């Protein structure tokens, strides 16, 4: 009996000692944490916003940044929405302290047992967790959350905390903050929301994916139940009347866009803009949280026309590795007005317009023509365009054989018509005559960068080099500008989140060709679009146009480079594997630059 009595005494003492010791230890840890846990500047986080990318007219294109968020002042958030969120998350927010002891004890209990972390966090705690901590679930993080919540309540008013919370909390569908959520769910500004819509936003907060009706009927049912719970809560707190609640009808919710911000063709634009911003010296932090506004040179009408033209006029490809690229550049300034880098950036991150390369084919012939005109060779000069022919290459001291496409024969053809019909057996001797290095020099001056390797041989005008699509668009823009080369660019201005100008572009242009040479070049290239290799595709094009087709060996790549006085555009089709032909796609036995590329060019 004594032993049993002693045992009981020791058990009681041990329990008291353990609980007391635990309390002392917890208190010590809390005090220690209070003085050691650092709160990052809350304003810096709350004010951090995605970088917004805009068309030249100010219309948004997309965003750079981990979070899609637009901050609004508390005054812009309707009182009913504030009440709905409080009814859903923390009814006593304005009357309580930073944390709820009962909620914490429940959460700790479940966590110690290895169960899921329970709710019960106050709005202040939720804000502390969202803004400053990782999603990791641990006791350590919970203590930090409490400490930060306590500190926040000492530093900020309830309204400030609530405003920050409303601007940072996640509502699902990639939207952070009430304003972005209003856009995503209801396509309207937050101050235009109805009570019914307020209750929906307040409902999804609890577990966004769990309540998103886009996931299925059962999710919609859950959301409706939660929505009613929120309305009832608002009635209970006398924030709305029973009659008001009874009148509410569950609202229509926007369909979820099943894609990220980089999905589709615009992902290539956003990615390239981001790349260019980094080249200009902007840091990742600035891009992700700086709230920058990036004005681009892209014109909405042209960009939408480009995507539409590619969509409508690109043939179905059974192989599935067809790449289509398009770049439009304003002559004389280098502004990139439209760009199509691919169908979906989420599927392939290689930008067909600025990163992929393909053999240029006869897109390079104008460079030989310019070199010839510079040496006084007339468009009326008459050449032997029969096929095949073998020339002696003075550079390599070897014979060089050349064929025309389809072995077409052009005996005694003028240089004008040889350009229109892309006669290889004229442009090879022309290149030898003017000097292959001169042809390369012209290509460089027009805009083909040093990174594109070119060999000074008779084949240079036949386009065995592999440029980017933007390189050829730049070169043809030089032609359209009557010999003014302009470095291509897409960012015209960068504004900070205080609307201060952080960067402003300057046109980098220089005269590289004589206007008379350009006038004759354009005359020859007009022959391509009116009677030559692109005439069929451009028969109904209602403006004066000039251009050049390019089709490579075995039809592995097909180009059309063309311009009007106001705009130069290059379109190219090619495959991932440069050895595979395009022939057969869209039912065409021979896919040339005058087929799909020229048709796309015409429509854009």
């Amino acid at each position: 009996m004594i032993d049993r009595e002693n045992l009981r005494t020791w058990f009681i003492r041990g329990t008291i000692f353990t609980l007391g010791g635990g309390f002392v230890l917890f208190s010590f840890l809390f005090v220690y944490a209070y003085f050691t846990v650092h709160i990052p500047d809350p304003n810096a986080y709350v004010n951090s916003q995605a970088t917004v990318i805009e068309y030249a007219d100010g219309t948004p294109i997309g965003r750079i940044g981990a979070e899609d968020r637009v901050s609004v002042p508390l005054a812009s958030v309707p009182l009913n929405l504030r009440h709905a969120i409080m009814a859903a998350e923390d009814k006593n927010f304005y009357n309580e302290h930073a944390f709820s002891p009962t909620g914490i004890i429940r959460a700790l209990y479940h966590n110690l047992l290895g169960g899921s972390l329970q709710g019960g966090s106050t709005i202040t705690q939720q804000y502390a967790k969202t803004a400053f901590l990782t999603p990791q679930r641990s006791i350590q993080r919970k203590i930090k959350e409490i400490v930060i919540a306590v500190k926040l309540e000492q530093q900020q008013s309830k309204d400030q905390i609530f405003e920050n919370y409303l601007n940072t909390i996640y509502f699902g569908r990639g939207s952070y903050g009430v304003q972005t959520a209003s856009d995503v769910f209801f396509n309207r500004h937050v101050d235009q929301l109805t009570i019914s819509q307020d209750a929906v936003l307040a409902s999804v907060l609890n577990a966004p994916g769990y309540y998103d009706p886009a996931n299925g009927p059962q999710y919609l049912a859950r959301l409706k139940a939660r929505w009613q719970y929120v309305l009832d809560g608002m009635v209970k707190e006398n924030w709305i009347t029973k009659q008001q609640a009874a009148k509410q009808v569950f609202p229509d919710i926007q369909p979820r866009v099943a894609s990220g911000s980089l999905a589709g063709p615009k992902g290539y634009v956003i990615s390239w803009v981001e790349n260019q911003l980094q080249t200009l010296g902007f840091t990742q932090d600035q891009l992700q949280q700086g709230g920058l506004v990036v004005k681009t040179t892209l014109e909405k009408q042209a960009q939408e026309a480009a995507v539409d033209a590619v969509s409508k006029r690109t043939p179905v490809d059974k192989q599935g590795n067809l790449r289509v690229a398009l770049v439009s550049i304003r002559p004389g300034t280098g502004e990139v007005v439209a760009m199509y880098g691919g169908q979906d950036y989420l599927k392939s991150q290689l930008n067909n317009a600025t990163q992929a390369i393909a053999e240029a084919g006869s897109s390079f012939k104008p460079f030989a023509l310019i070199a010839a005109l510079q040496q006084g060779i007339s468009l009326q000069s008459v050449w032997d365009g029969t096929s095949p022919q073998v020339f002696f290459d003075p550079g390599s001291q070897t014979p060089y054989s050349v064929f025309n496409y389809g072995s077409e024969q052009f005996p005694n053809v003028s240089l004008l018509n040889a350009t229109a019909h892309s006669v290889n057996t004229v442009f090879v001797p022309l290149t030898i005559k003017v000097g292959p290095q001169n042809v390369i020099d012209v290509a460089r001056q027009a805009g083909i960068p040093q990174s594109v390797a070119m060999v000074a041989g008779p084949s240079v005008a036949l386009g065995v080099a592999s440029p980017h699509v933007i390189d050829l668009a730049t070169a043809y823009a030089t032609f359209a500008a009557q010999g003014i080369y302009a470095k291509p660019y897409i960012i015209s201005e960068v504004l900070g989140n205080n609307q201060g100008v952080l960067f402003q572009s300057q046109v980098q242009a220089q005269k590289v060709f004589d206007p008379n040479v350009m006038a004759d070049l354009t005359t020859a290239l007009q022959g391509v679009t009116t009677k030559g290799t692109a005439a069929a595709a451009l028969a109904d094009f209602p403006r004066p146009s000039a251009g050049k087709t390019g089709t490579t060996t075995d039809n592995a790549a097909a180009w059309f480079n063309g311009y009007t006085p106001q705009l130069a555009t290059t379109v190219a089709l090619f495959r991932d594997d440069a050895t595979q032909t395009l022939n057969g796609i869209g039912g065409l036995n021979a896919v040339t630059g005058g087929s799909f590329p020229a048709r796309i060019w015409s429509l854009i």
Partner: protein
Amino acid sequence: MKNALKGQPVLPFPPAANIGGTDPVPMQNAVPTLDPALAQSPTPIPHPAPAKTPAKKK
């Protein structure tokens, strides 16, 4: 470029400058040619060996 240029004026290109004149200038023999049969030979051509043939271009 119909849609990209929608609403913009139709502008003409500058007239030809006619560099080198408007009369035909024979250039058929501007550079020396070799026997075309060499291009059709399926077997390697004896010295000097031919350079790689760029086939169809348009």
